[in-house]
């Protein structure tokens, strides 16, 4: 069997530029247009109804007009017998229980064949909950990052911890940037996705760092750069196989949820993880490892100018 030996560290400059640009674009998008926040963050109501095969958007707006909601975003979904969407998703500002009941009653009057079962989903989230969610997300992110820095510093050393955290911030930024750029909706499941990616990214980085740590002990006359490269190469099949299998599972999930409107949030979840896993695998090799190498070299120069 041929041993793989790709000089990954040679590409570090290209990788840094690529990642830098990616993050820059994401950051510009984030600062200018921000995120497309769903009702979990902004508060609001979503009603998902099955109206039957023959309905037009104008009819729906007519029903909504008496409630002053004729201008709200509507989405035709589902699949009726004629292949057209027979369901509708209505997104409105927060409505109280009475208003929701009256709207549903109006729809049932307009489409008399509707039963209680055709009210597929009603979600109503108060603005308070949205604010709490944002705080929770921020808290979770900071707490997780600090605890991981602590753990990696204890098990490895501070430079490893720092490199790993930069890599995971990279992944978090990539995913948030892409969601901002393509105006993909962000809900509470997105937070779970970002945190899962952080978990995956750190997992992937640690496996490589573990190998670097091990190889440093039996370094012989290899340079640190060679040690890093050998470690990445030794791990390459694992990196590829693991990310491929996880990607396959996620892809199946994504395709399945694509056909199912009730799982809109989960579709986004699967998508976020798909992007995150690619980014996480990439950043372990092209961001975390070279960063550690650079810092280590810089540290050695400062501490021990004597020849080794």
């Amino acid at each position, binding site marked *: 069997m041929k041993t793989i030996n790709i000089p990954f560290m040679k590409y570090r400059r290209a990788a840094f530029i690529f990642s830098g640009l990616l993050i820059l674009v994401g950051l510009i998008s984030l600062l200018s247009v921000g995120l497309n926040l769903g009702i979990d963050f902004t508060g609001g109501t979503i009603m998902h109804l099955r109206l039957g095969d023959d309905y037009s958007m104008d009819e729906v707006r007519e029903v909504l007009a008496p409630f002053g909601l004729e201008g709200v975003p509507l989405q035709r979904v589902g699949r009726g017998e004629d292949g057209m969407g027979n369901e509708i998703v209505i997104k409105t500002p927060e409505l109280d229980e009475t208003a929701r009941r009256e709207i549903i009653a109006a729809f049932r009057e307009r489409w008399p064949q509707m039963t209680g079962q055709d*009210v597929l989903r009603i979600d109503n989230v*108060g603005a308070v909950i949205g604010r709490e969610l944002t705080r929770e997300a921020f808290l979770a992110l900071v707490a997780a990052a600090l605890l991981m820095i602590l753990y990696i510093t204890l098990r490895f050393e501070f430079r490893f911890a720092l490199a790993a955290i930069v890599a995971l911030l990279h992944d978090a930024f990539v995913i948030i940037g892409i969601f901002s750029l393509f105006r993909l909706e962000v809900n509470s499941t997105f937070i*779970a996705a970002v*945190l899962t990616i952080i978990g995956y990214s750190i997992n992937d980085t640690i496996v490589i760092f573990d190998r670097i740590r091990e190889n440093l002990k039996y370094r012989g006359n290899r340079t640190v750069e060679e040690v890093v490269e050998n470690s990445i190469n030794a791990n390459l099949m694992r990196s590829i196989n693991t990310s491929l299998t996880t990607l396959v599972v*996620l892809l199946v*999930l994504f395709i399945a949820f694509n056909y199912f409107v009730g799982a809109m949030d989960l579709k986004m979840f699967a998508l976020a993880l798909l992007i995150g896993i690619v980014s996480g695998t990439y950043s372990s090799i092209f961001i975390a490892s070279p960063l550690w190498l650079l810092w280590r070299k810089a540290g050695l120069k400062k501490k021990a100018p004597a020849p080794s």
Partner: protein
Amino acid sequence: MSQRKKKQAGLQALFFIIISVLLVSASIVFLLNWDDYLRKGLDLEGGIYVLLEAVDTGDAEIDYDAIQRAMTIIRQRVDELGVVEPVLQREGERRIRIELPGIDDPGQAMAVIGRTAMLTFLSPEGEVILTGANLKNAYFTRGEYNQPVVALEFDAEGREIFARATQEYLHQVIAIYLDEELVSAPVVQAVITDGNAIITGIGSAEEAHSIALMLRSGALPVRLVELETRSVGPLLGENALRLAFSAGIVGLLLVALFMLFYYRFAGLVSVISLIVYLAVVFLVLAALKATLTLPGLAGLILSIGMAVDANVLIFERVKEELRLGKTILTAINTGFELALRAILDANITTVIVALVLFIVASGPVRGFAVVLLIGIMASFLTAIFLTRMLLRMAARSRLLKKPAYLGYRG
């Protein structure tokens, strides 16, 4: 190979086969019957999730006792709706979380749960004559024109007050309010001494049913506002469940095929461990009386990825050892030892994330964290113990005699 060694190898092979078949079949039987011991979440079965918060109105103090009483009343209302296994929980100081699984008409339940339902009779001068506190019973019935009405029956004190009031305001209007809403304003036709009254002017039979139900359970001692509601119709839930399961099974099959193709015999071992791993996760979930939700299923499918990773890490390490020219058994032993530390460190960092999520997050994200947490631990245990045991057994038997069986192409 000596006769004794051969016999021993045969025995190991037999053990391997028996243990594998037993474990896999027990796991599959257990997994197929998950419906019996795992509760389905609202998103998979249909139902309502409501988060209510008590607000200050000036006349009612919100304390522990008031929330507790409110919960008792809500429970009573929910019971009357016929909900099986409702969940009512206090959250923080002044919040109540309600989960009602398997409801056919979420709309009706929503109309009933959080409403204060304070019934008041007002005199023409606008003074409160009587409230719902003096009610003995309330029920739905039909009035003389077959219109839906709510019949009221007062207790002894109420009967007395009502008799006096109807005498005092004979041929005048008494207004009947439910919370701030005027339900009807009948003219008193006669003095009523038997303590019975009816409320007319109710829009529909459904509404009359709801009002009667709320009056029977009594008014809530505090005003509750709705912070969050998620109601999923049963059809949507059923679809979600079917879809998530088929996606999970297809995903698993693809992973199994990949492992078999790439790691051959070792791949088979990992597939066996993966099936057992799934059963372990379900077992723990069942023991914790957890509810399986859609985010939970997503967490499960993701943790399968992590379980596969542990196996891949080990097998790649074993291959490296084989490359160094070690025997299969030694390669397996050293490979495991070397992979163990990486798996441990990697898993602990992921556990940290999952734990933080579990502590900080609420609702669906939390459900995801629980499954992820259990998944990581189960994957660690099955990879370290089961995969190792089976591989070593196979290595000692004649089942695994060539490095090629491990996917090693030297």
